[in-house]
C-alpha cells in the first residue's frame, strides 16, 4: 500500500540533481551578459526615493494599526491573567464597585472609582491553591466540561469520518440531497435545533443526564460536512489504485483515506472542541440540575464574595484552549479555511 504514494512524497531525495553544464570556464564567461551600472539620472533617483519613503510610511502605518488592534484583542485576556494573581482584598479595592452587592460591601474598603490595573501589587497564588485543592465545586465543574467535550470530539469525529467517506467516495442524487440537508441543519441556530433535541431527549428519558448533551453533540452534522469537503480533495486515482491492488472498501477507508485526512481531523477536532468547551445554550435547556452544568455556565453564577477566585477559575478554564491553540494554530487556520466556500 505504501508504495502508492511513495513517489509523490520523496522524489526529492532520489531524483538526481541536474548536472552542471560541463565546459571550460572561459567559454562561460563569454556567454554571460555583463551588467553595467549606469549613473542614475537624478530625477528618477528622486522618484525612486520618494516611492521608497511612501512604502516605508505605509508599512509603519499598517504596523501601528495592527499593533493597536492586537493590543485591544489581547488586553482582556492579559488582564484576566494578571488579575488572577491579585489577592482578594486588592480585587475588592479595585473592582468592589462592580461586583459587590449592597449587603456584603460593608467590611472591605471599596474605592469610588474602578481601577483597572495591569499588574498586581503583590503576586499571590492563594486563589489557585483554593480553587485546586480547597473548594471542590470549581474543579468539579471543570471536570464536567472535560467529560462533556472529550467524548463529543472523539465520537463525532468517528461517526463523521465514516459518513464523510460514504459521501465523498460515491455520488448519487439521493446522497447529494441528504448532504444538502446536513448543510442546512448545520447552518441552523441553536434556537431552532434545540427544540427537536429537547423533544427527543424527553422521549428517551435522557433529559437531565449527560446523554442529553452527548448524543446530539456526537451526531452533529458539522464534522460530516467538513470532512466530506476534505476527503473530496483526495485524488480519486489513489482510491482506484488501491482498488486495483485488491483492497476492500474498509481497507481503503482505514488504511488510505484516514491517514491522508490526519491534518483535517486535527483541525476539525479543534473547531469542535472550542464549540463545545464554550457551550452555554444546551446545558441551560437540557440540564436542569445545576450540579451537572459545565464551567462555562457556572462561571457566571459565581457568588459575589469570590471574585478573586473567579479570576483564577477563568484562567484555568481558558488555559486548555489556549494551549491547544498555541500547539495547533496551523491546524486551526487550515480548518477555518476549509470551512469557507460552502458551495463547492
Amino acid at each position, binding site marked *: 500500500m505504501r508504495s502508492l504514494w511513495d513517489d509523490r512524497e520523496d522524489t526529492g531525495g532520489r531524483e538526481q540533481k541536474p548536472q552542471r553544464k560541463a565546459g571550460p570556464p572561459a567559454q562561460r564567461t563569454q556567454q554571460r551578459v555583463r551588467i553595467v551600472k549606469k549613473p542614475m539620472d537624478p530625477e528618477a533617483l528622486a522618484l525612486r526615493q520618494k516611492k521608497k519613503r511612501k512604502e516605508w510610511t505605509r508599512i509603519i502605518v499598517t504596523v501601528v494599526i495592527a499593533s493597536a488592534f492586537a493590543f485591544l484583542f489581547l488586553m*482582556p485576556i492579559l488582564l484576566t491573567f494578571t488579575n488572577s494573581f491579585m489577592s482578594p482584598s486588592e480585587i475588592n479595592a479595585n473592582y468592589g464597585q462592580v461586583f459587590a452587592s449592597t449587603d456584603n460591601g460593608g467590611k472591605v474598603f471599596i474605592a469610588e472609582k*474602578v481601577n483597572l490595573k495591569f499588574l498586581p501589587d503583590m503576586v499571590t497564588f492563594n486563589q489557585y491553591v483554593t480553587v485546586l485543592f480547597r473548594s471542590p465545586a470549581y474543579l468539579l465543574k471543570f471536570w464536567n466540561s472535560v467529560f462533556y467535550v472529550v467524548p463529543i470530539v472523539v465520537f463525532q469525529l468517528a461517526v463523521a469520518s465514516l459518513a464523510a467517506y460514504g459521501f465523498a467516495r460515491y455520488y448519487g442524487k439521493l446522497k447529494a440531497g441528504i448532504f444538502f440537508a446536513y448543510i442546512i441543519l448545520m447552518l441552523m441556530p441553536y434556537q431552532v435545533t434545540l427544540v427537536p433535541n429537547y423533544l427527543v431527549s424527553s422521549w428517551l428519558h435522557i433529559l437531565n443526564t449527560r446523554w442529553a448533551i452527548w448524543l446530539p453533540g456526537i451526531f452533529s452534522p458539522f464534522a460530516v460536512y467538513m470532512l466530506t469537503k476534505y476527503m473530496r480533495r483526495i485524488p480519486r486515482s489513489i482510491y*482506484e489504485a488501491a482498488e486495483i491492488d485488491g483492497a476492500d472498501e474498509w481497507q481503503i477507508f482505514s488504511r488510505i483515506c484516514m491517514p491522508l485526512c490526519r491534518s483535517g481531523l486535527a483541525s476539525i477536532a479543534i473547531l469542535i472542541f472550542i464549540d463545545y468547551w464554550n457551550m452555554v445554550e444546551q446545558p441551560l435547556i437540557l440540564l436542569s440540575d445545576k450540579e451537572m452544568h459545565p464551567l*462555562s455556565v457556572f462561571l457566571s453564577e459565581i457568588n459575589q464574595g469570590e471574585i478573586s477566585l473567579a479570576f483564577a477559575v477563568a484562567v484555568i478554564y481558558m488555559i486548555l484552549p489556549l494551549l491547544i491553540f498555541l500547539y495547533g494554530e496551523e491546524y486551526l487556520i487550515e480548518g477555518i479555511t476549509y470551512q469557507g466556500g460552502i458551495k463547492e
Partner: protein
Amino acid sequence: MKDRINRFLRKHTKPDKSIRRPNLKGTLGRKARRLREDLKGKSAREAALLALSRIRAFLEEGLDNGYHTSRHSRLSWLFILPSLAGVCLFFFLPFLVVIFYSFVNNPVQHRFVGFANYIRAAGNAAFLLAAGNTLKFTAISVPLAVLLSLGLAVMMDTKIPFRSAFRTAFLTPMMVPVASVILIWEVLFHYHGLANDLIGIFGAGPVDWMKSEYAPIVIATLFQWKNLGYNMILFMAGLASIPRDILEVARLESASSLQIFLLIKLRYLSSTIVFVTIMSVINSFKVFREIYLMTGNYPYDSLYMLQHFMNNTFNSLDYQKLSAAAILMSLIMIVIIAVMFKAENRISRDLEY
C-alpha cells in the same frame, strides 16, 4: 488478477456516466422490452423464474446506473448509516414533530388549529421584542464584522513585519471561552469603568452601559472581538486564492491599488463575503451566550434576544408556541441563506478560476 483489471477498466473508463442523470423511465422500458423478448416461447414456470431473477438483478444494480456497481453503492450507504440514523433521530424526525406540534392545539389532544400558533407566537410581545432586538443586532454587527475583518485581512495581505504574530493575536479571542473574559468585560463597561473614562475625555457623560439603550454596543464590541479573527482568516484564504496573473496584468495596465481592490479582488472574494456573512449571521444569533453570561435570564429590554425568549418558553413548557417560533426562525434563516447564495451566483457567474 487480469480479470480484475479488466473489470476495473470496464467500470472506470466511462466516468462521465456518473454525472449523467439516471434515466429511470428509459431504463425500465428497455429492460421490460428485453424481458418480453426473452420470455417468448417459455413455460410459465420458467418465465416467472426468469422475470423474478431479472427484477432482482435490476434492484441489486440500483437506480444509479453510473459507473458504481451496486455493491459499492450499498457499501457507501453502510458508511453513512450511523450518522444518518443519529441525525434522523435527533434532528430530522423531531423536526417533523415540531412542524406537527406547531399546527395542533396541544401535544396531548392533537386538534388541528391551522396557523393559530404562529399568530399567537408572532403576536407575543416578548417574541416581537426578542425578534426585533436580534434583527437589529444582526443588521448592525454583521456588516460591521464583514467590513472590519475584510480591512484587517487586506492589511495582513501586504508585506508587513511580524505578520504571523499579528495573525495569532487576532485569532486568540476566538479560542478564549467567553465565560473567562466576562469578568474583565464587566469591569471595562461598569458605570465607573474604563469605557466611561474614555468617553469622558471627549466630553461625553458617563453611561450606565449594561442597563440602558447602549447595552447592545457593549455586546456588539464583544461580538466583534470574538469573531473578527475567524472572519479575517477566511478573507485571507480568499485573497490568497485570487489568481496571481490577473493581478499582475492589472498592475501592468497601471491600475491603481484601489481599482485592483474594488474591481478584481472584491469580485473574486464574493463567495467568501457570502460565507462570512452567513457565518456572522449565525454567530450573531448565538450572541445570547455573551448576554446570558453577563446579565442572566432577564436582561435589560434592549438585550432581550430570541434565545431568551426560547429559554423562558421552555420553562413554561408551551410546546406549540415554541414549535411555531422555531419554525418561523428556521424559515427566516433559510430565506437569508437562499438570498445570499442567489446574490453570490449573480456576482460570480462570469468568474474563472
